[in-house]
């Protein structure tokens, strides 16, 4: 607060001290803003540019506010204000010229200075031009990328001049491409087409496509050639992208199913409430974010142990209260756990809300990792893929390398024998079920970043989970991993030409046929375990 006031003071001092500043220039920013409020859609661009070049210290502030729909005019006085908080009926505003906080004003008294996508597009271009001269390399990079397709008569000379001064080679070539797009599209220049030949940027491709469609044969031939080389590269990128999509969907399936692979696969309990355990994990993430407002990243990381614990405790409660009494009666277990799943859903509906809850993605999980202009891998899914692999590896370790894992395998292979060797089978049952449920909770934490967190979350994954476990081979964790990733990839390969609805159906039919041929799945249990 005090800093901004000090800045304002400095600004006024700067404006008033030199005798050369005329009264007219002092009023200029207000006049410009008022012009903006009254401008017809056609004139806004000129006004925006006038503001950008006015050199006023707050010019960038105004344009930012304008683009974010925060610039308003007070109805009675005509004063231009920036809306700081636009929630509810009373809005907090600040004077646009001085930056002074004016407190809350009723929404009724404000006239919004209209902005729309067309204007926002122009704004992006203008802001990119301003950012082109920034000292920060990343800002300049982003600005150059923004200029692709936005170079026009007014700025082409400035951009061309900037190419000479730009120290960074990548940014230089990016700017050359941006200028080339303008020259190809507006001037029909054939010489610069080779500048675009290597570019995978959609705008470059669009310019070449337009050139191919043009009347001018001198333009058409080189454009076709350039486009040909791009298409080849694009195909490779597309294939890599589809593979990534498949692995990512697969990792979601693996996460959802891996808990079930333990409870159903290893213990043989058909747990229809598995989906609701996933849901509990997702709600834990939401609850954690409520407890730690403003720190979604920390909340998410803390949700990993918390989600595991909540779901594991719920699992223990289910095992102790219901499943232990229904040992060896799969049909009753199925019905009872289905009832539990309905109870848990309704519980969430009544206690929390029937409506979906907002789970915020932390900054480091949104956006994508840009490999090149045609291939970028979305970060949230990459984290989920990595998380799935870590969970899988940990589970493998527990089952193979710890005493608990050994006991679990012993009890499932031959319960009576294990007990006579001194293993407490009941305790092992509890621990195993808790482990499987806890892993379902972990899946919920991950899914909260991809899909809606609501009472129906679990239902959407229960069928898929059983599908993966059965396809992979009951009782085999490796099977679950391979099955999940395979089904995900097949689904994503089919989707582009079959559509989402048909792709799902084809995958289901494929599994049915596969199970007919190999009833025990991809990796059937061998030896004594198979008969147990």
């Amino acid at each position, binding site marked *: 607060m005090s800093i901004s006031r000090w800045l304002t003071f400095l600004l006024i001092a700067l404006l008033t001290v030199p005798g050369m500043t005329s009264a007219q220039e002092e009023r200029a920013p207000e006049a410009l803003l008022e012009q903006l409020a009254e401008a017809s859609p056609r004139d806004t661009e000129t006004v925006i540019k006038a503001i950008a070049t006015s050199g006023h210290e707050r010019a960038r502030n105004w344009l930012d506010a304008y683009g974010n729909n925060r610039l308003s005019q007070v109805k009675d006085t005509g004063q231009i204000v920036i809306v700081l908080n636009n929630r509810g009926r009373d809005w907090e505003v600040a004077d646009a010229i001085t930056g002074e906080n004016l407190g809350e004003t009723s929404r009724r008294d404000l006239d*919004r200075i209209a902005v729309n996508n067309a204007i926002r597009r122009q704004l992006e271009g203008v802001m990119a031009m301003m950012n082109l001269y920034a000292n920060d390399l990343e800002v300049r990079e982003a600005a150059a990328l923004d200029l692709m397709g936005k170079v026009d008569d007014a700025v082409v000379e400035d951009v061309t001049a900037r190419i000479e001064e730009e120290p960074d080679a990548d940014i230089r070539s990016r700017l050359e491409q941006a200028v080339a797009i303008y020259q190809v599209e507006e001037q029909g220049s054939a010489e610069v087409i080779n500048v675009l030949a290597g570019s995978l940027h959609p705008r470059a491709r669009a310019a070449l*496509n337009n050139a191919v469609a043009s009347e001018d044969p001198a333009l058409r031939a080189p454009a076709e050639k350039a486009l040909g080389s791009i298409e080849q590269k694009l195909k490779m990128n597309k294939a890599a992208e589809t593979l990534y999509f498949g692995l990512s969907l697969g990792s979601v399936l693996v996460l959802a199913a891996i808990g079930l692979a333990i409870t159903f696969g290893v213990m043989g309990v058909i747990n229809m409430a598995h989906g609701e355990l996933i849901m509990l994990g997702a709600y834990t993430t939401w609850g954690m974010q409520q407890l730690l407002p403003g720190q979604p990243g920390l909340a998410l990381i803390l949700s990993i142990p918390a989600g595991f614990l909540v779901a594991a405790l719920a699992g223990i409660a289910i095992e102790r209260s219901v499943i232990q009494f229904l040992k060896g009666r799969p049909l009753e277990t199925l019905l009872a756990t289905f009832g539990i799943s309905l109870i848990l859903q309704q519980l969430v509906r009544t206690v929390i809300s029937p409506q979906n809850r907002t789970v915020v993605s932390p900054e480091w999980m949104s956006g994508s990792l840009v490999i090149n202009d045609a291939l970028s891998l979305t970060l949230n899914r990459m984290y989920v893929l990595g998380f799935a692999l870590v969970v899988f590896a940990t589970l493998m370790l527990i089952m193979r390398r710890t005493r608990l894992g050994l006991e679990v395998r012993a009890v499932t292979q031959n319960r009576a024998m294990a007990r006579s060797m001194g293993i407490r089978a009941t305790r092992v049952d509890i621990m195993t079920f808790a482990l499987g449920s806890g892993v379902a909770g972990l899946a919920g934490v991950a899914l909260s970043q991809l899909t809606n967190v609501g009472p129906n979350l679990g239902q959407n994954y229960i069928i898929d989970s059983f599908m993966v476990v059965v396809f992979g081979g009951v009782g085999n964790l490796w099977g679950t991993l391979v099955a999940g990733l395979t089904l995900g990839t097949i689904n994503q390969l089919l989707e582009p030409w079959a559509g989402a609805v048909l792709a799902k159906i084809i995958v289901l039919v494929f599994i049915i046929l596969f199970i007919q041929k190999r009833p025990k799945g991809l990796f059937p249990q061998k030896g004594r375990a198979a008969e147990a």
Partner: protein
Amino acid sequence: MTTFKKRLASVALTTALGTGMNLAHAQEDPIKVGILHSLSGTMAISETVLKDTVEMLIEQQNAEGGLLGRELEAVVVDPASNWPLFAEKARELLAQEEVDVIFGNWTSVSRKSVLPVVEELNGLLFYPVQYEGEESSENVFYTGAAPNQQAIPAVDYLKNELGVERWVLAGTDYVYPRTTNKILETYLKDQGVAAEDLMINYTPFGHSDWQNIVSDIKSFGSAGKKTAVVSTINGDANVPFYRELGNQGISATDIPVVAFSVGEQELSGIDTGPLVGHLAAWNYFMSVDSDVNYDFIDQWIEYTGDEEAVTNDPMEAHYIGFNMWVEAVQKAETTEVGAVKDAIIGVTVPNLTGGYATMMPNHHITKPVLIGEIQDNGQFTTVWQTPSTVAGDAWSDYLPGSRDLIADWRAPMRCGNYNVTVGKCGASAGEQAAAAE
């Protein structure tokens, strides 16, 4: 909320006591208003607020002295998002409770389930949600938008104002998106859009893996022509869709998405940061700058006692429908269904956007069409609107078989599907339209 109700009751009492005439009337039987909205099950999210809206309007009307000097009484039933139960509950309202009017339904399938009951028992139903058209019943008043009051103007906006030449029609796989997209496809092709500039895509309910589709949209949009997505994606499947758009770096300035099923209620459950600039087409936005709207919002917040409560398009439709019915009853001086039905045609009441809505002879109303952009506060701001109101068209002009049909419930025609080429009224024409689908 209770104190507010008490206050209203006391106001009603004093007005009633104030004049002897009113006191005499108040002792007559109340006028019963049926409310048929799901209060449990999947649709409860959307429909509960509509029940509250009608109850609020009834309270306000009673505070003003009721209707024809009689008190209004709400009869609330819960059809529990169960389509056959809608028909049963409608029968209960009309046959047992003998209500004079029903406000209700959200999904098209629930309306279709109620339709025969309302027609058989000669009831009145006000239906407040945007729908696919191709229907006009003597007993139903459609206060939501027909396709020509939402989808067609939205496409016009994209085409004329944003210069869109390539179209992605993405929808959930059920009747409303399929019919709407069929209408839009014909409309766009009539406008000279080539088949290769159209991409149509359907996804299952609750679809959550949008990677491939968004990537397809991205490459479809890089063919050199301005591209837009027209989305009839239903309910919460929109959230992962928008999230994927944001993550794959598609902003509203590159490829705008215009949605027909995303309103303030839906946005209140999500972080709208990455959605800024994407579009929706409705006939009302909570952000509309008009005094009557600000008053309505104040009343609504006071009634619900929730400072964060939002208003939306179907609520405005009930507001209009309720006031139209009140006016028609006053005009007919009776609540008798036949008289009200005749009296309501031509009735004009204020809407919440600062204009007026008129009931047309085809039982649809006139509405302005608003295009809004999503803001970071979960609201829309209007970026464009039709210069005047648009009258709802029951039968689309862009479907074969349907384009020859008109509906006019005035005497002497009194027909919901009059075929102008054959010059005959009859269900055969409707069947013809259905067969052509």
